[in-house]
Structures are given as structure tokens and as C-alpha cells.
């Protein structure tokens, strides 16, 4: 009986400790001190990171892609996430945010109010962003229009409706380490930054474990489509079987080597990649071919 009491006490201390560890862990003012953003460079970050693909209105084309009104729905095993308004509206968007607020959202998954964001915002990848890129992106976002459409709440069931669970997720999975570690050629290194941090390829192309963390041992080896239909393909070299020029052409035109054309959400990704300099697409190709093949 006494033993049980001790175990209970230890359990409570453990839970309390976890509770403390799982609190939001924001950056501080000194992390962004002295940074000046360049909106022109920030536009390249914006497209490479695919911000508009999720935060624009569904089916938006042309300049409407720059109105980051939110509202697109993203079904998952945990419930349906609804992209929020991140336009420059000071009330309904992020027009009132500081650079530190943006850096905390992208690199730590923490809101200006100190609340955890769900990792549907892919900060599991954006955590690897360079702070200068965040500053450039911040400068570019400030040039975009405001829209006063209110954000919709996510549609999640218990326990995932409790944001405390996200703190535990972060303890387990949030890292700034590369999924493909080690020294790479300068070209592949640039590709790694684009693929792992900016374009967050792993978020869809890597399977997740039961707790929603990416299974980095099977990095980019494909995953069930969270929408419930079909699979997101394995893009490790042997499974894909494409050459570097094949990958570059695909990311430029959307044509596979068999001249089928891209479909689904990947259409957005190709549109985004096509806006980058060709050297960046070459870099992504070199990186992808350096990833270990997984059957």
C-alpha cells in the first residue's frame, strides 16, 4: 500500500515535470535582434515555403494567391485543420505581428499569446529555417493585402483538441537537426535546406508514427494520404527511378518522365518550385538523389 502511494507520488511528479517541459518554449528578442528583412528575397522564401498553397482561398489563381485569407480544410487522423487567415489584417490576420511573433510561429510553433500551434503548420520543418529567411519573409508578408475574414476553429476530437498534447509532441519530435545528416556538396546542401526546411517535403512524403511524428528512418519513403485516399509516393532514389534532369523537369513543368502530369496538392508544389531559380531545382534534385533508398 505504501509502495502504491510512492508510485502515485512519483507518477504525479513525472506528470508535473512533463507538464513543465511541455510548456511553450518561445524565442526571445535577442534571437531576432539586428535582423533587417529584404522583401524581394522574402518573396522567394514565401514561394519556396509554400505559404500561399495552404493559406490562400481554395482554387485561388493569379494575384488572388497573395490574399492569405485562410479557410482551406485539411483532413487528418486527428481531425480537420482549417488554415487560418494570415493576411495583413491587424485583427483577423497577422498584420499586428512583430518579427519575433513570426519567428516563434514558424520555428517554435508558438503563437504571440504563448499558445502551442498544431503542427499542421509545418514548424516541424520550418524549425530548420535560417533566421534571416524569416526576416526576409516577414518583410515580404508586410507587402501583401489585408482581408478581414475571421479564421475558423479547427475541428478536432478529444484529446487532440487539448493543446497541451502538442507540447508533448514537440518534446518528442521537434528538432533543428537534418533528416539527412552529414556533409553534402554545396549544391545538395542548398537542396537539403529547400527540401527539408522551406518546401517541407517530408511532411507529406514521410510516414508518421502513432503519435504523429515523422518516421525519419523512412525519410521520404512515402505515406498514406491524410485525406484517406491513395498514397503519397516514395521519392527515395531507387523507388522513384528518376534522373536529376527528370526531377528538374518535373519541378519546372509538372511532367513526369512518362509525360503524365502532376495532380493533387503536388500541383501547388510544382507551381511554387517553378518560381524559383533553376539552380534551386537542380539543388533539390541533387539532394533527393543523395537520400538513402528505402523500399
Amino acid at each position, binding site marked *: 500500500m505504501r509502495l502504491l502511494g510512492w508510485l502515485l507520488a512519483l507518477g504525479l511528479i513525472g506528470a508535473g515535470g512533463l507538464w513543465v517541459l511541455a510548456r511553450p518554449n518561445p524565442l526571445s528578442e535577442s534571437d531576432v535582434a539586428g535582423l533587417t528583412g529584404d522583401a524581394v528575397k522574402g518573396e522567394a522564401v514565401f514561394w519556396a515555403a509554400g505559404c500561399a498553397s495552404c493559406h490562400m482561398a481554395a482554387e485561388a489563381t493569379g494575384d488572388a494567391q497573395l490574399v492569405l485569407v485562410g479557410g482551406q480544410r485539411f483532413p487528418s487522423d486527428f481531425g480537420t485543420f482549417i488554415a487560418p487567415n494570415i493576411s495583413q489584417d491587424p485583427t483577423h490576420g497577422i498584420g499586428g505581428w512583430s518579427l519575433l511573433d513570426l519567428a516563434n510561429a514558424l520555428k517554435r510553433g508558438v503563437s504571440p499569446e504563448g499558445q502551442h500551434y498544431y503542427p499542421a503548420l509545418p514548424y516541424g520543418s520550418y524549425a530548420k529555417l535560417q533566421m534571416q529567411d524569416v526576416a526576409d519573409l516577414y518583410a515580404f508578408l508586410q507587402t501583401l493585402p489585408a482581408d478581414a475574414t475571421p479564421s475558423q476553429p479547427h475541428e478536432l476530437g478529444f484529446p487532440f483538441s487539448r493543446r497541451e498534447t502538442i507540447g508533448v509532441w514537440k518534446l518528442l519530435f521537434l528538432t533543428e537537426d537534418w533528416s539527412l545528416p552529414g556533409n553534402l556538396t554545396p549544391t545538395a546542401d542548398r537542396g537539403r535546406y529547400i527540401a527539408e526546411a522551406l518546401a517541407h517535403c517530408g511532411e507529406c512524403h514521410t510516414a508518421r508514427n502513432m503519435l504523429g511524428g515523422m518516421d525519419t528512418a523512412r525519410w521520404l519513403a512515402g505515406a498514406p494520404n491524410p485525406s484517406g485516399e491513395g498514397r503519397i509516393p516514395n521519392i527515395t532514389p531507387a523507388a522513384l527511378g528518376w534522373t536529376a534532369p527528370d526531377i*528538374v523537369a518535373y519541378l519546372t513543368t509538372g*511532367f513526369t518522365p512518362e509525360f503524365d502530369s502532376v495532380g493533387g496538392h503536388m500541383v501547388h508544389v510544382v507551381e511554387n518550385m517553378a518560381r524559383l531559380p533553376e539552380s534551386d531545382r537542380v539543388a533539390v534534385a541533387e539532394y533527393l538523389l543523395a537520400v538513402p533508398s528505402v523500399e
Partner: protein
Amino acid sequence: MKTITMLAAALAVAGFAAFAQDAEDPFADTVEMRHGLMLQMATDLGTVGAMAKGEVAYDAAVASKAAANIAAVASVISMAQWPEGSQYGAAADSYALPAIWATPDDFLTKIADLNTAAATFQVAAATDVDALKTGMGALGGACSACHKAYRQPEE
């Protein structure tokens, strides 16, 4: 004699099976026609794509012929190949989504956009390899705009 009887019987069964299949799947020919159009498109894209990738040398005459074929196939595409009901899950081998018939005007707009892109690409393909490379991006955009909205992603 016996062999001939059996052969005739087998042929009759095979003929009936083919007939029965058509009767069961009224869209079999339609879906095959769609796939044939896309395959012809892919073949001509392969010709210009190999030049864009630098796998074969640019040849204005060959590129122009392929681009003309692409424009010709694009001009054939209409709602006629997508009769209502021939969708994914209902017609065998079909990946067409029911959204086609929910928003037919948009579907037709995307077909018109494809024809515009194909016409622009004919000019680009006849110019030089750089123009051809750039042109393929716009053409690919027209293909994927329709595939994104109206095609069920494959496994």
C-alpha cells in the same frame, strides 16, 4: 470435326463475353478513347521533353510536328469524351472525378486554356530550345490545372 465444334463454341463464348462486358460497362470505349488521347499527348510531349532535358538535340522540324500533334489532340478534347456517369469508381479504369459535371463551365474553360497553351507552345517549339523549355512550363500548367481539379490521384 470435334475440334472445329469446340473452337466454334469457344469463339461464341468469347464473343458473348465481349458483348456482355460492353453491356455491363457502357463507358469502356469512352474511357479507352480518353486514355488513347492522353497517351498520344504523352508521346508527343516525350519528343519535345527529351529536347528540353537535353537528352536529344533540338530539331525545329521534329519539335514543330510534335507541337502540332499536341495542339491537334487538344482540339479534339471536349465534353463528348466525358459523358456523365463515366467517373472514377463507376466506370472501369476511369479516374475522372464527378466535379466535371458539377462545374462543367470550369471544365470547358480549362480545355480552352489547354488549347491556348498548345497554340502558344507551337510557336515556342518552332523558335529555339530555350523557348521550348519555357513553353513546356506553361503547357504543363494547363495539363495539371485540369488534372488537379478533375482527376482522382493514382496510387
